[in-house]
């Protein structure tokens, strides 16, 4: 496809009621020149949108095409050459959109496609399959490779399918073979009818249908076989029943035979039964008699035992009586023994000890009284002495004179006051000191003593100093207090003098001395009086009778008299035997002796007491035993009576039943007889059990078994009938024929499936092989592209690079610098070079894709980064390419293309509407070339 003319309205900057922009192109090289903003890109965009965008599209991108701020409908009109035809395309977007394709026939354009079909037809010109619009380069069909617009990446990661298809169809057209086409078409058709795009068998294919049928048949067959298999199972069950039936019949026969045998054996049963009854009765009678005898014997034995027991009891009591009698006697003897002991032995000893103690005590009292008398005598002497001393002291105190204590204290206070005043006066007094040159008398008034030529004087009151020949000096203190103190001092002294006179003392010191001596004397008198009182009171009971007449000394005297009297009495009373001992008297020894005696006395008293108690105890015991003895005697008498009664009873029994031994003999006889009978009976019973009872039980058991086996047989027959009926039920369903039919049908379908599967797999195999071989061919397509690209790259870079590493996908991955074996990653070359490689690749693809029909290559300022040298070297390459395909180069720098043999279309800078298209060649077909 190549472009002849483009016209656009209401497209971005191109607006206005009659606004329109147009450009016409030559089939070869075209240079679209215009400054920035002149609308070069808009023009190219309009071509792409006109070819690829759906007329009804309302994408945001498309709405931006509308002139800014308007609601005008963008419109594009193209004239194209494609497939050997000249086409006119008209598209309007957004408002009242439409799309129309006209084909020129005999000089006139005829409308061939309209609306969506027009859109579709136009996209097919670029081999674009999707309906996604022109926005992304990968949705532009082969224009992805041939159009290099400003915002596009120089090279994509991969080319769209359209490019590969384009190249493939290119190759296909080169090697085209109608036979092959038809075969491949057939193959693709078969593949499409057999398989889904993911390679699975299609749901509606014949193969799938056969497989489904086969699976259904298999399922049904399995089901039917299972159904008919039931008959086989029933038959197996029947065999089991049959076996069981045989066994059951066998058992039933055996049971019946045994019953018959048993019936024969139990014929003698009634006679045996009669005999057993007779024997049982005899045994019962015998047992009754034996029981009665046993009771009588028991009574006899009990009476004997009771008699025996009574005799034993009586004997026991008589023994007890004898024992008690002995005890009474012994206790009485013990009482007498104890009485003798304390009366005859201990009592006299005690009397003796007591008299000794009395003697000792008398001796000690005498001694005591003598000592006391001596002490009283000493005290009386002392008291006399103290009374004499007291009288003496009292005399001395009288001599000393009256000195009242108050006076002494007053004298002391006045004396102290005078002293203080004098000291204070002197401290406050004025010191007058003088020293005269001459020995002149100095009179001082008031004064008491003359004064010499030089002196020092204290002035305590207004004083006049009259110095002979000189005059009189008056000295006084300015302070009134000094004078007052002086006066008081004099008054004090006067009062002191008066006091001393009254006390007849020469001085205060004397008065004080006298006062001190008087104090001492008074203290002495007090002391003596106290000592006297003390002596008097010593050892005396206080005079409590209130008899004031009795003085302490008188009491003492009385006491002495009493003691003397007592002593005299004692001496008189004391036996002579005691008294001589007085010579070696010692109090301690006496006390020891007394203590020993006292202990002996106590011991004796205790012994006597104990003996007396023992005596009383023995007497008490004697009394008690005696009482017991009496009681025992009574009890024994009772027992004797009882024993007599028992004996009488026993004799009565013996007279009635005979003796015990007779009875026992009878019992033994009865027992033997019973045993004999019992054994005989047991024997019969054993026979009964064996011959009658057990067979009878067995009969019952056998009857039960027989019934069971009969029932079992009945059940088995019922089961058999049931299974047979079920088998008939199964065979009545026609399953066998059905299985035969199904098996046949399945085998047929399986054959068909196998054939179809084989064919499908063969088709798939062919498909895979075709894909492989086509890809192989595709790879061989890359070669011419690579050759052209390598040549141009060497030309452009002056052999700096000698080639491009081009993958089978036609995406370059590196360049090969001259002189190196290894290729260099594409990312590592300069951006300019990279861009140039992209341009060259697109030109090369354009050339090759144009082998059948001229294709359009668009470069929108794709070489801005080329230097001047390379730019110049590029021009012949562009010219060479343009010999094969249409090339439109858009640029804002026409000088870079100076000298290029190209058709130039200039666009004005102003975006404003210009009514005319500025083109050097206004008419198609009159190219400058």
């Amino acid at each position: 496809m190549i472009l002849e003319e483009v016209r656009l309205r209401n497209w971005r900057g191109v607006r206005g009621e009659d606004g329109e922009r147009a450009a016409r192109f030559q089939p070869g090289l075209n240079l679209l020149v215009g400054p920035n903003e002149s609308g070069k890109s808009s023009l190219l965009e309009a071509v792409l949108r006109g070819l690829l965008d759906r007329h009804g599209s309302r994408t945001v991108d498309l709405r931006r095409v509308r002139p800014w701020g308007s609601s005008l409908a963008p419109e594009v009109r193209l004239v194209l050459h494609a497939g050997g035809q000249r086409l006119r395309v008209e598209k309007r977007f957004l408002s009242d959109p439409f799309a129309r394709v006209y084909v020129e026939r005999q000089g006139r354009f005829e409308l061939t496609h309209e609306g969506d079909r027009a859109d579709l037809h136009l996209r097919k010109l670029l081999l674009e399959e999707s309906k996604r619009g022109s926005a992304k380069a990968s949705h532009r069909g082969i224009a992805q490779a041939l159009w290099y617009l400003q915002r596009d990446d120089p090279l994509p990661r991969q080319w769209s399918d359209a490019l590969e298809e384009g190249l493939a169809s290119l190759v296909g057209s080169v090697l085209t073979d109608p036979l092959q086409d038809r075969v491949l078409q057939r193959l693709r058709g078969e593949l499409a009818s057999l398989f889904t795009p993911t390679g699975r068998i299609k749901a509606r294919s014949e193969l799938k249908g056969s497989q489904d049928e086969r699976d259904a048949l298999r399922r049904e067959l399995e089901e039917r076989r299972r159904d008919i298999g039931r008959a086989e199972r029933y038959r197996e069950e029947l065999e089991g029943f049959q076996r069981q039936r045989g066994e059951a019949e066998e058992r039933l026969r055996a049971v019946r035979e045994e019953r018959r045998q048993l019936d024969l054996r139990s014929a003698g049963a009634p006679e045996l039964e009669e005999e057993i009854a007779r024997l049982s009765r005899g045994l019962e009678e015998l047992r009754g008699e034996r029981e009665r005898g046993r009771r009588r014997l028991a009574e006899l034995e009990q009476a004997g035992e009771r008699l025996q027991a009574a005799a034993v009891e009586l004997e026991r009591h008589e023994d007890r009586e004898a024992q008690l009698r002995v005890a009474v006697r012994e206790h009485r003897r013990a009482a007498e023994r104890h009485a003798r002991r304390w009366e005859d032995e201990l009592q006299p000893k005690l009397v003796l000890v007591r008299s000794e103690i009395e003697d000792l005590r008398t001796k000690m009292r005498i001694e005591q009284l003598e000592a006391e008398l001596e002490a009283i005598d000493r005290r009386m002497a002392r008291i006399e002495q103290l009374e004499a001393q007291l009288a003496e002291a009292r005399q001395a105190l009288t001599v000393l004179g009256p000195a009242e204590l108050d006076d002494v204290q007053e004298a002391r206070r006045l004396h102290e006051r005078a002293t203080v005043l004098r000291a204070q006066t002197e401290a406050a007094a004025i010191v007058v000191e003088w020293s005269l040159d001459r020995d002149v008398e100095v009179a001082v008034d008031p004064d008491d003593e003359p004064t010499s030529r030089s002196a020092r004087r204290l002035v305590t009151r207004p004083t006049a100093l009259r110095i002979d020949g000189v005059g009189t000096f008056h000295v006084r203190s300015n302070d009134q207090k000094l004078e007052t103190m002086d006066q008081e001092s004099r008054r004090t002294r006067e009062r002191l003098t008066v006091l001393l006179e009254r006390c007849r003392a020469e001085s205060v010191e004397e008065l004080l001395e006298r006062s001190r001596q008087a104090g001492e004397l008074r203290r002495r008198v007090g002391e003596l009086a106290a000592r006297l009182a003390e002596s008097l009171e010593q050892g005396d009971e206080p005079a409590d009778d209130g008899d004031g007449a009795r003085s302490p000394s008188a009491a003492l005297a009385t006491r002495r008299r009493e003691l003397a009297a007592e002593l005299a009495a004692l001496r008189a009373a004391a036996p002579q035997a005691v008294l001589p001992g007085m010579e070696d008297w010692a109090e301690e020894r006496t006390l020891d002796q007394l203590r020993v005696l006292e202990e002996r006395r106590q011991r004796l008293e205790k012994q006597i007491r104990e003996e007396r108690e023992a005596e009383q105890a023995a007497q008490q015991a004697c009394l008690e035993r005696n009482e017991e003895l009496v009681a025992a005697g009574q009890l024994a008498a009772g027992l004797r009576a009882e024993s007599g009664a028992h004996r009488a009873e026993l004799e009565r029994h013996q007279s009635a039943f005979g003796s015990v031994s007779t009875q026992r003999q009878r019992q033994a006889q009865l027992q033997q007889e019973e045993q004999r009978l019992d054994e005989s009976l047991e024997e019969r019973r054993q026979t009964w059990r064996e011959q009658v009872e057990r067979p009878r039980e067995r009969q019952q058991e056998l009857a039960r078994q027989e019934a069971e086996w009969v029932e079992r047989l009945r059940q088995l027959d019922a089961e058999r009938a049931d299974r047979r009926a079920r088998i008939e039920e199964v065979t009545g369903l026609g399953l066998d024929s059905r299985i035969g039919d199904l098996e046949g049908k399945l085998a047929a379908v399986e054959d068909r499936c196998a054939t179809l599967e084989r064919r499908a797999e063969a088709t798939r195999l062919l498909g895979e092989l075709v894909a492989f071989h086509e890809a192989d061919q595709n790879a061989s397509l890359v070669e011419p592209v690579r050759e052209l690209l390598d040549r141009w790259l060497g030309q452009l870079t002056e052999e700096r690079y000698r080639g491009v590493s081009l993958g089978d996908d036609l995406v370059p991955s590196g360049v090969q610098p001259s002189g190196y074996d290894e290729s260099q990653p594409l990312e590592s070359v300069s951006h300019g070079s990279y861009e140039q490689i992209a341009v060259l690749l697109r030109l090369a693809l354009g050339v090759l894709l144009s082998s059948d029909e001229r294709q359009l290559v668009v470069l929108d300022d794709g070489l801005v980064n080329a230097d001047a040298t390379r730019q110049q070297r590029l021009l012949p390459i562009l010219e060479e390419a343009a010999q094969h395909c249409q090339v439109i180069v858009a640029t804002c720098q026409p000088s870079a293309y100076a000298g290029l043999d190209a058709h130039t279309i200039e666009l004005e800078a102003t975006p404003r509407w210009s009514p005319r298209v500025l083109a050097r060649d206004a008419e198609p077909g009159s190219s400058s070339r």
Partner: protein
Amino acid sequence: MSAGAAPTLRLLLTADWQIGLRAGQLRERAGDLRRERLRAARRTLEVARSSGCELVVVAGDLFDRPDVDADAVDGVVSLFAEFSDIPILVLPGNHDPVCEGDVWGRREWRSAPAHVHLLREAREIELSSLVGGEVAPAALYPCPIGQKQSRLDPTGWIPSRAEGDERLRLGIAHGSLDSMGKATNFPIAHRRAELAGLDFLALGDWHGTTILERAAYPGTPEQCSFGEQGAGSALVVTLRRGAPPQIEQHRVGRFHWVQEEVEVRSASDLQALRHVFDAGGSAPESTIARLRLELAGGDLQLIERSEGLLEQLREELFFLDAALEVLDLSEVEFESPLLAALDASLHALEQGEPVPDALDELRAAPLEVVREARLQLRRWMGAARGELEEAEA
């Protein structure tokens, strides 16, 4: 038969009707073949009638399985009812043994007419007790089968001929004569007739007719499967005391079973094959065939002709099970390099020769698939060429 003369008995011997045979190998025609078996039975009984037989003996395997459909049993019983003039003795075989739940206990069989006698016990039977007095004095020794398999000789119980016993003694058994030397099911001593003093031992089980001195297998009246030999007959046996039995073989089967493996190299091979059916012993509609055609070095035309022949036979024959295997295709000139490369790759895969790495996975494709692919390619090419020529013309 006349008084004083040696007793004579004329009977029809048949066996192995295998009624109810599923015959799945005949695909869609399995049902038809089942129905055909009953027709063969009818023809057998018609032979008995036309040959003046006094008795029909069915020596086992009347039914193919114990669970045969009620309809099939009904069919047999109805058929027997049509031949009420001839007593029919039926021996249970290994396919229809006497046992609990057997076919003989079923309602359909119990309604069999009175002239049909099931020989369910191994005991001597006076023939006259079964068929009435108008028959030569003869003792029957039936040897019914009570299970599917056994290693015991079912005829072992037959007593020797007693001194002075001048009756005809006829053994009826089902099993395999042990003369074959193999371990067999129900082995029958091959000298049983001589050992037991039997005039004749009627046998069933072998599907091919086998006639011995005093014993015979009639074989199945209608062949059951490919590979059976000598099937499709009934025997008319005439017994006379003191003389060897006279045995006539009558064809009663309809179908011929043909199994061929043919190597096709040229059109003449196909013609020869065609001739097999045209000149065969039976009409094509009574022929059941299994063909294995191996085409070696064949071109597309030969393949198509082969297919055409098979198609034609499939139309004509009662049943055809055919397989066509193209062993080696002749080389073809491909103008298109792509198609040539394609065929070369397929050829390499077929021959197990090396292929490009990218195609290595395809080596796993089964040989038949590879061959089919080559064939398809040629077919499509042939079709395309035809279309192009048509378009040109």
